[in-house]
């Protein structure tokens, strides 16, 4: 609805200006003159994409196959924990072994207790060599005989028994399904979701191996063709809405693409604009959004695209601390899911915009900028302390500028020059200048 109205307004505006300024040339958008021809930009983009795909000889000698935790672990002070993809049968037998062990404990009158890896914030570490957050090996006991943990212990047992059923029947369910199997015990979906993450840590497998998926959140559009559970999907023919990113990444395959880059968009609205303007036809690309904080499926999908197609990833996020935070989750993982960061993170994402320095560079009017709240500034300063920000000098500078000016802006601030400014001028100019960090 809103989009239709928006489009009509744009058209209306166009016809208006036509009538008034028919004898004049249409007023150019700011900075439009600086744009070179699309073909020029495309050539430079192609070179850039090629350099990513086939690194020059000089760097290829230094670049080995990607590092794993095992490679760096000897140099680490604390041992770290990581999960792997397990087959259904091995998940099943892990659960069975655990349950047999606990049953013996119950029968001998000792109750039962789970040893669950701690996912608290103190148990995380950022490893620069890997460029992602990993989980340390601290774990906590969850005994049935303590008032504080009896509830969680029971829920853990219940979730494990449900996963066991899934393994036997070999089917997938959503987190919501799981919650509804025993609402009375779980009370709240956040509780069953949290225990589900605990369980995958406990069993040492990824959450996808548990056959539990989250409902679809992310969408993709652009120059990519893939098969979803056997059906071929052409993402150029997905309309404005885009294709929902499938929750089961193991059913996705046969990736084909002629795109030059992947564009990661924070927000639905900007995604809609780019999809409607068919931005991917002007500059061949794949556009992805997770509508805010990314879910597991989107992160897995992005990782798959990046690793199989070897394309550069450019991110378009709000110019505020949360935009950068979202970027960091794609890049080096969230603390909540750090046990599986190896599978979820996509290294080397470029920060295209909107960057704090863009506010002045593109002369975004004052009324479109927002003052940062106390909370925003605090978040910004906290981010400056984070290792994943510190390793990128450009990011530190940008973030320092944001905290200093105390101004933030959303992607929509660009609409002050016209709704299509984003796709017509801003992004092409950015690509032309290769202005990313």
């Amino acid at each position, binding site marked *: 609805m809103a989009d239709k109205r928006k489009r009509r307004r744009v058209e209306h505006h166009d016809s208006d200006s036509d009538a008034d300024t028919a004898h004049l040339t249409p007023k150019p958008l700011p900075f439009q003159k600086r744009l070179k021809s699309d073909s020029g930009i495309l050539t430079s983009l192609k070179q850039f994409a090629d350099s990513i795909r086939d690194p020059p000889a000089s760097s290829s000698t230094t670049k080995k196959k990607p590092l794993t935790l095992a490679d760096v672990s000897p140099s680490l002070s604390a041992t770290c924990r990581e999960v792997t993809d397990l087959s259904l049968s091995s998940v099943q037998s892990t659960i069975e072994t655990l349950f047999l062990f606990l*049953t013996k404990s*119950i029968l001998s*009158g000792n109750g039962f207790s789970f040893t669950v890896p701690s996912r608290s914030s103190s148990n995380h570490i950022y490893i620069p060599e890997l460029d992602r957050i990993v989980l340390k090996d601290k774990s906590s006991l969850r005994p049935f*005989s303590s*008032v504080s943990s009896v509830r969680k212990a029971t829920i853990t*047992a*219940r979730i494990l028994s449900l996963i066991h059923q899934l393994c*036997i029947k070999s089917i997938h369910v959503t987190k919501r399904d799981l919650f509804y199997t025993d609402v009375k*015990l779980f009370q709240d979906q956040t509780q069953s979701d949290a225990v589900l993450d605990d369980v995958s840590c406990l069993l040492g497998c990824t959450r996808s191996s548990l056959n539990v998926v989250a409902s679809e959140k992310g969408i993709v559009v652009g120059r990519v063709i893939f098969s979803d559970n056997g059906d071929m999907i052409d993402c150029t023919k997905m309309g404005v809405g885009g294709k929902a990113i499938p929750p089961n990444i193991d059913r996705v395959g046969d990736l084909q693409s002629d795109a030059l880059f992947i564009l990661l968009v924070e927000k639905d609205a900007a995604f809609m604009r780019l999809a409607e303007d068919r931005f991917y036809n002007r500059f061949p690309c794949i556009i992805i959004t997770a509508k805010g904080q990314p879910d597991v499926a989107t992160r897995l999908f992005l990782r798959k695209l990046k690793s199989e197609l070897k394309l550069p990833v450019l991110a378009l996020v709000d110019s505020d601390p949360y935009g950068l935070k979202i970027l960091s989750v794609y890049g080096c993982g969230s603390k909540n899911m750090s046990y599986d960061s190896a599978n979820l993170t996509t290294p080397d994402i470029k920060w295209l915009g909107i960057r704090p320095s863009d506010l002045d560079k593109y002369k975004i009017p004052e009324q479109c900028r927002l003052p940062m709240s106390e909370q925003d500034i605090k978040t910004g300063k906290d981010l400056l302390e984070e290792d994943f920000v510190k390793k990128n000098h450009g990011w530190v500078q940008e973030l320092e500028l944001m905290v200093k000016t105390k101004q933030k802006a959303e992607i929509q601030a660009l609409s002050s020059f016209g709704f299509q400014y984003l796709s017509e001028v801003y992004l092409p100019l950015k690509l032309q200048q290769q202005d990313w960090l």
Partner: protein
Amino acid sequence: MEMGGSSESPSGQKKGKAKTPNKLKESVLKQKSPAEFFAENKNIAGFDNPGKCLYTTMRELVENSLDSAESISELPVVEVTIEEIGKSKFNSMIGLVDRERVDEELYDDYETAKAREKRLAKEARDQEIQAKNSALGKKIKEPSAAKTIKGRGGASFYRVTCKDNGRGMPHDDIPNMFGRVLSGTKYGLKQTRGKFGLGAKMALIWSKMSTGLPIEISSAMNGQSYLSFCRLDIDIHRNIPHVHLHEKRDNKDHWHGAEIQVVIEGNWTTYRSKILHYMRQMAVITPYAQFLFKFVSESSDKDVTIRFARRTDIMPPVPIETKYHPSAVDLLLIKRLIGETSKQNLSQFLQHEFVNIGKSYAERLIGEMGAEFSPKMHVKSLSAPQIVRIHQLFRQAKFDDPSGDCLSPAGEYNLRLGIIKELHPDMVATYSGSAQVFEGHPVIVEAGVSVGGKDVKQGLNIFRFANRIPLLFEQGADVVTRTAQKRINWGSYKINQTQDKIGVFVSIVSTKIPFKGTGKEYIGDDISEIASAVKSAIQQCCVQLKSKIVKRIQAREQQERKRNLSKYIPDASNAFYEVLREMALLHASKKKRYEDADAEILSKVSTRLLTKEVLSEELAKHVEKVDYQMALEYATQTGVGEEPKEDIYVQSLNPKSNFIDLRSPLFLFRFFQ
């Protein structure tokens, strides 16, 4: 003084209103006596409607009694009786007092001529309509007539009696103490319950307005061989007492104190709860007093008798009359002090009539005033502009804050006992703040917070006291209510604002309480000094309570641990059994092989030797064992019987023994001689 001044403007307004009916009277300059002014604007003193009049009358008498007893350091014993007087009895009472009738008619004209005119006109109209209706053959016209009769006959009358063991009154002063509005003994600058000398007189004015019956006073002072009895009413127009009978009687019991009896119109049904609340809250803030409250109605089933027993014999010290703080005076006050002072020269006047001005400071001030001032100059010779200059300097100069020594807060000790005595809470904490200053007047804020108790509703129960009087009306706008509801984060003290029975008691004492509005009903939320003092006092109480509450939660966890653990046994054993059953099926169908001990367990499941019930049983046994261990551990850690038993107060048999008290805010040493 202040009241006398303000009486002029309302009477002026009154004149303006009365202009229309009679133009001849317009130019006549009228004088209003203070009594007349208050009779017309009796809502100022809390006499809004019959119900509230009954409440205020009772309240004023009780407060006078307490002030009177405390002024001679006697533990107060106050007996209040409200007796309902039926219409027939009331009529016979008026019948007896023949002489009064004349006066009352005069009064009746004065008050309700308009009402009667209206009523007559309406009755005439009703009759007309009725006649019309009956002519038309309609019958239903009774209700309106019945209603008017009910409205006029519905007024109920009460005899309010209040007897105390206070100072009593000098025989000759009695008529003036009751029959002259704005005359009083409490005008000085000190913390008192009453202030304007209005209370008892307003009761008398109201009795005169509503029943026309005089007030009866019996009084005897300590060691006085006779008992003064006085029956009087007030000449409202001249603001002088009108004495019916004033005689000395025998005082056989060597009683001292006062007993005041007044008959007024009132409404017990609507103000019953307010009156009882008032008595209860008064009992909280004055636990050293003994109250006996009786309501006697014509039908004995509605009778109420409540006795609020004494809980302690320690009284707060008598408030001391203090001198004015330089920053709290106005021009008029300076003029008055100059008129009253016994000192001759300016320097002595400054030192003697104000607090916080020493000799050297007085001289510095005089030096600052200007060349025409000198320390030795005659204070009575100051000209009007010179006084203004003194006032200006008082406003600008810096003075030390007044001390709270002249105040008499209830004290944590008494507040705590009062709360315990009347509410029987599960736990209580009290806090007494240090003296604050508001506009040159010292203010002390004390607070108590209780949790649980009997006759306490869930959520916040606010008890407000100003100069040790309960405040019952205008609760919503009061600083205490606002603070307790909006600015205290009860959750952080483990108190549930909606579920727990929370009692919040805040007592504010000052030489001048900054009441809002005309009635002494509430203290506004706009005074930041008081608001922050109230907040911190309540918070201090909460901090004390928090540790107790945490301990209690732990104790409760101990008790409920077994139940909390057992609650999850079915779910847990179910989860285990489901997995085991599936595995047993796989094992039986040979899809999957298990080894030794594992196979043994699975075969037990298949043969139904190991069932859900067995798992539940084993878990229950385990819970039992753990619970026993934990309980033992808890008991060895905390010890048994940690909760103190409630101490009992036994009234001393011989209250006349001599002793010296050494006071501290928290305790008191009493040396018996």
